[in-house]
Every structure is written in structure tokens, then in C-alpha cells.
């Protein structure tokens, strides 16, 4: 058990190191001085003296690269990611803390729905293979998953938001309502999240269904399934405890790919629905050439993705006794 988790942890640390290095190298390898660009982009909000502080914080000190890298790492792990340029002098960490809950809301709820519904449909489709649901929903939802998220987001926005005018199409809640633990605010948040969630679920559902169905079909050929049937267990028990319980393992290992897909979807969908999450903030940072904010967001996103992967590893460990040492 320790071996498995520590080797996985090692990957994540390495992956985070790659992201850090990427962040460190980019401004140094790109043509032009990034601080000149930032200075220009800030439109006078930053004074030259403050720019010098920023430079130091990002490791732009005189000296060889490894010294710079060390300064950079120290800067990052001090927990201070510097001020944003667009929202100067608000600290980057504060901006991230403000937008993170929105993204987690979308990611969490949509994943919960797509995973539970997708896996159940996958199990059902494999069990009734060649049946009505399997012949229509399996290829249909899988193809829907290949539907570009920006297109489905625009169509959904157009249909439900503009044409039918059922639900709000922009922002995370009605700004006229005071934020707080009130039912009114909660309903406003829910109605604003509805269309982005619908888009995310539509694009995510098919992937889970497809993975689970194919894994189930491979598992159903195993001897222990036949033995389960021979034991006179109910069809339901064989399906869940014998087939699905085994078929889910390869699905859990494929989580990494699905998380990448989800992050890409969040970025685009938050932009289209002008949702106040991390993805939308990232695009704001890109267009404002706000490098401190951009790098803070990137490291946060990478960190969250790695944590999600680690949670999937824990789930795998819990599901597969073969990995636990006796």
C-alpha cells in the first residue's frame, strides 16, 4: 500500500515540479522583457519601484539561472504569489480564493452527476447489451461527448437562455441579491449554475458511460461472473458485486484523462457563461497580460488536478485489495 501511494505521490510531485519549471522558464525564454510588457499593460497602475519588488519575487535577480530558480521557488513556497496587475494591488491569492469556490461548485456537481449517471447507464447498457438503451444511448451519448464544448455551450445558451429565456446566461448569481446564507441567494446561484452544469454534464456523461460499458463487457466474459451465476445469486448481485465491482477498476485508472477533459471544459464554459470561476479569471489574466495572476492560476489548477488524481488513487486502493499488502 505504502509502495503504491508513494510511487503515485512521486509522480505528482514530479508533475508539479514540471509545472513550476514551465512557469519559471516561459518568461525567460520568450522574446522581450515580460516586465516591460506588464508595465505597459498595467497602464500606470504600477510604479517602477513596485515593479522592482515584483521582479525579485519572481526570481528575476542578477545571477545564474540556478540562483534565480532558487529565489523563484522560495517566492512560490512563501505562499505569496504577488499582486495582480489588472486588479492591482489585490493579491493573486485573494483573487484565486474568490473564484475557486465557483469552479469547485461546477466541477464537483457536474462530476458527481456525470459519474453516477454515466456509470449506472454503462452498467445497465452492458447488462442489457444490444437492447434499446444500449443501441441508442451508448453511441448517442458517446458522440455527444465528442461534441465540442464551446458549440454545445453556445447552443444551450442560445436555446435555453435566449430563445426560451428560461435561465440566466451570465455570472454566478444575481448581483442585486446580497450574498449570504439565504434561500434567495441559494436559488440565484443554482439557477445561474444550471446551464453551465447542463453543458458540462452533457459533455462528460458519454465518456463515463463508454468507459464503463466497455469495461463491463470485458468483465462479463470472466469465469467469476459465470461462477456468480452458478451460485444462484440474484442477477443484480452478480451485476454489482461481481461485474461492476471489477469493471470499475480500469475506469478509475482512466480518471486522469477525464480530469483533463473537465478542466478544458470548465475553461471554455466559464468563459461563454461569464461564470466568475478560475477558468474565466485565467482568460481575463491572459488578455490583460497579468502574468502574476496567470502563473498563480496555473499552479492552482495544476495543484487541484493533482489532488483529484491522488483522490482517484486512494479510491483505487480502496477498491482493489490486490494493491493492499497483507
Amino acid at each position, binding site marked *: 500500500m505504502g509502495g503504491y501511494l508513494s510511487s503515485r505521490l512521486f509522480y505528482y510531485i514530479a508533475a508539479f515540479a514540471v509545472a513550476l519549471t514551465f512557469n519559471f522558464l516561459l518568461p525567460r525564454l520568450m522574446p522581450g522583457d515580460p516586465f516591460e510588457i506588464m508595465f505597459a499593460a498595467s497602464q500606470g497602475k504600477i510604479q517602477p519601484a513596485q515593479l522592482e519588488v515584483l521582479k525579485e519575487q519572481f526570481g528575476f535577480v542578477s545571477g545564474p539561472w540556478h540562483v534565480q530558480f532558487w529565489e523563484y521557488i522560495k517566492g512560490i513556497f512563501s505562499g505569496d504569489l504577488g499582486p495582480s496587475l489588472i486588479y492591482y494591488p489585490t493579491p493573486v491569492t485573494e483573487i484565486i480564493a474568490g473564484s475557486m469556490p465557483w469552479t469547485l461548485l461546477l466541477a464537483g456537481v457536474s462530476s458527481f452527476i456525470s459519474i453516477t449517471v454515466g456509470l449506472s447507464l454503462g452498467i445497465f447498457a452492458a447488462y442489457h447489451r444490444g437492447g434499446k438503451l444500449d443501441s441508442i444511448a451508448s453511441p448517442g451519448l458517446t458522440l455527444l461527448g465528442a461534441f465540442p464544448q464551446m458549440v454545445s455551450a453556445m447552443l444551450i445558451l442560445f436555446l435555453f437562455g435566449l430563445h426560451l429565456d428560461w435561465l440566466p446566461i451570465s455570472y454566478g448569481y444575481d448581483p442585486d441579491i446580497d450574498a449570504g446564507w439565504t434561500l434567495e441567494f441559494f436559488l440565484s446561484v443554482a439557477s445561474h449554475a444550471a446551464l453551465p452544469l447542463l453543458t458540462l454534464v452533457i459533455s462528460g456523461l458519454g465518456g463515463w458511460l463508454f468507459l464503463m460499458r466497455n469495461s463491463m463487457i470485458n468483465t462479463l466474459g*470472466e*469465469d*467469476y461472473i*459465470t*461462477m*456468480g*451465476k*452458478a*451460485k*444462484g*445469486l*440474484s*442477477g443484480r*448481485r452478480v451485476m454489482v*458485486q*461481481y461485474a461492476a*465491482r*471489477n469493471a470499475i*477498476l480500469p475506469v478509475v485508472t482512466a480518471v486522469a484523462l477525464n480530469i483533463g477533459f473537465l478542466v478544458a471544459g470548465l475553461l471554455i464554459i466559464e468563459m461563454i457563461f461569464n461564470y466568475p470561476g478560475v477558468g474565466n479569471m485565467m482568460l481575463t489574466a491572459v488578455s490583460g497580460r497579468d502574468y502574476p495572476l496567470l502563473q498563480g492560476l496555473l499552479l492552482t489548477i495544476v495543484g487541484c488536478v493533482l489532488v483529484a488524481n491522488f483522490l482517484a488513487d486512494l479510491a483505487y486502493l480502496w*477498491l*482493489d*485489495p*490486490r494493491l493492499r499488502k*497483507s
Partner: protein
Amino acid sequence: MSEQSVKQSQPLMDIRGLSVEYLVGDRRLRAVDNVSFTINKGETVGLAGESGCGKSTLAFALTKLQKPPALIVEGEVIFDGKDVLAFDEEELRRFRWKETSVVFQSAMNCLNPVISINQQICDVLRVHNPAMNRGELQDRARELLRIVGIHPDRLNQYPHQFSGGMRQRAVLAISLALKPQLIIMDEPTTALDVVVEREIMDQLSELKEQFGFSILLISHDLSLMGEITDRIAVMYAGKLVEIAPTEDVLFRPQHPYTKGLVNSFPDLLGEKKELTGIAGNPMNLFNPPAGCYFEERCPESTEQCKKSDPTLITLNSQHKAKCHLLS
């Protein structure tokens, strides 16, 4: 041993004219063709033949475990006066394991890898005895492991923590869980080394002595069968070609195929003889000949064998064989 046990016995499972076909594209391939025989109470019957002769297909069909593309097209399997093949899902569920349990070919793959042995014993106990409480289930599970020679402390372990031999014992323990009247064993020791095979077969004999169940032992290994069975049925290309008490099959085989099969194994009693085997390959079931299916490989074939397929001829009350030479 065989003579007296057969005489006293009454039928437990009566297989009548069972045929199983495989659906391959638009064609049908007959894997089991009109097979009939009876398994008596307390009796051990061997079912022998080359791989691909339909013996495993037959075994699966007996409890309706056939998987696509296999279809049971004809026949009845009478157990306690009822046709098992006509059972619906619910009747089948109640019949399975309670009356007839199955020990599968590979213990490696027939245990569920992600749930403990305990759960795999208890789930079958619980589903057939809903009244049993937790403590009773545990006691019974421990007892079952003890019966097959596994220390009960290993109850909560998972299949991957067991050696090959132990897994096969665990499967045996599960098969005994409901004290079935018949255990179908499909090549139960093929994957094991000879020493472990020996131990398990000895154990099986003891258990049979103790509980008095019947066994249908499917194997390609006649010498293994010779030790434990009362009667042996021999299949070739989906058809039953000979059935007789074990001694008759081993020492007085009548069908040329059985003779070849007997000759391809070393003698049990250690007497030296030349192992001949059977020339040629198993026939192509897609293209069955008009005559005897074994004709092409048969060393004693005649003109008549090419023309018509022989029927199963009764040689004496216990011995039947399917060959023109015997009529």
C-alpha cells in the same frame, strides 16, 4: 467398487437427448449432439474426451449456464422429476448451487478478485438461507474452510493471497457450502501441479465418503478418472461414443476412439506398454460427414462407417458404445 454402488443407486440427474449448438454468423455448429446418460445418487461419473469435444459445453448446459453464442436446442435434464432446462430465472436461481454446484476449470479466474473469500462463501449461504444470522454464517464459513484443509484464520483474505492449490480448495469449500446432491467438476486440477492435484483428489474422495454427493468429473485425463469414478462416459465430436463402468472402459474399451484414448495414457498399474495415441486431428464440426464422425481417424474403419452414423448399441446393462463394429 463400481458394481455394487451402481446396482443400489437410483437416478439423480437424467440427461435426455441433450443438444447444444453454437450460433456462428448464420451457421450453427453442433457442439453437443443428442447426449443421454444418467447420474445416480452418490455416484461419480467421469466425462472424458479431447479438448473441444463438447464436454465443458455439456457441463455448462446442465445448469443452464450456457453463454452466447451457445444455445440449448433440444433435450431435457431431469432432476427430482423436473426439467431443469425448462426452469425460469427464479426457479433456476433456487436450483443452482443448492442442488448442483460447479467447480470451474480455473480456480485462478473463478474467484472474484476484489471480495474476500469470506464474502464469497457467505453470499451463497445467505441467498439460499436468508434466515441465517451473521454468527451462523461465520461459523459455517469457518467450518467449510476447515473441511477442505484451509486454516479458518484465512477466511477474511482475498483470492490473490492464496496459492493455486488453496484457491482450488476454496472453490471446493464454496461448492460444498449448501451440501448439494451433485457437484459438476470441470477439469478441477488441470492448472495444478501433480502433488497438489494428488492432495486435492484425496481430499475429494474423503469428502464424498463423508457427505455422499454425486460427482460429474470432466477431464481429459483418464488415469485421474480411473481412481475416483464409478462410470466413465466418453465423448467425441459432440457425441457420446461409449459409456460403461470405469473398469470396463479402462480395461475392456469397445469403441476404437476409447481404445485410442486409453492407450494414450500410461498404465496405472505400472505395466509397461507402448503409448499409441490417436492419429489425425479432431474433426471440423462445420463440415460433419455423413457417416461415423470418427471414421476419418479410425484404424478399424469399414465401408459402412463412411455411409451411416452408428447408433449407441447396448452391449450389456451397463455398457453402451456407438460403433458399427459392435453390431
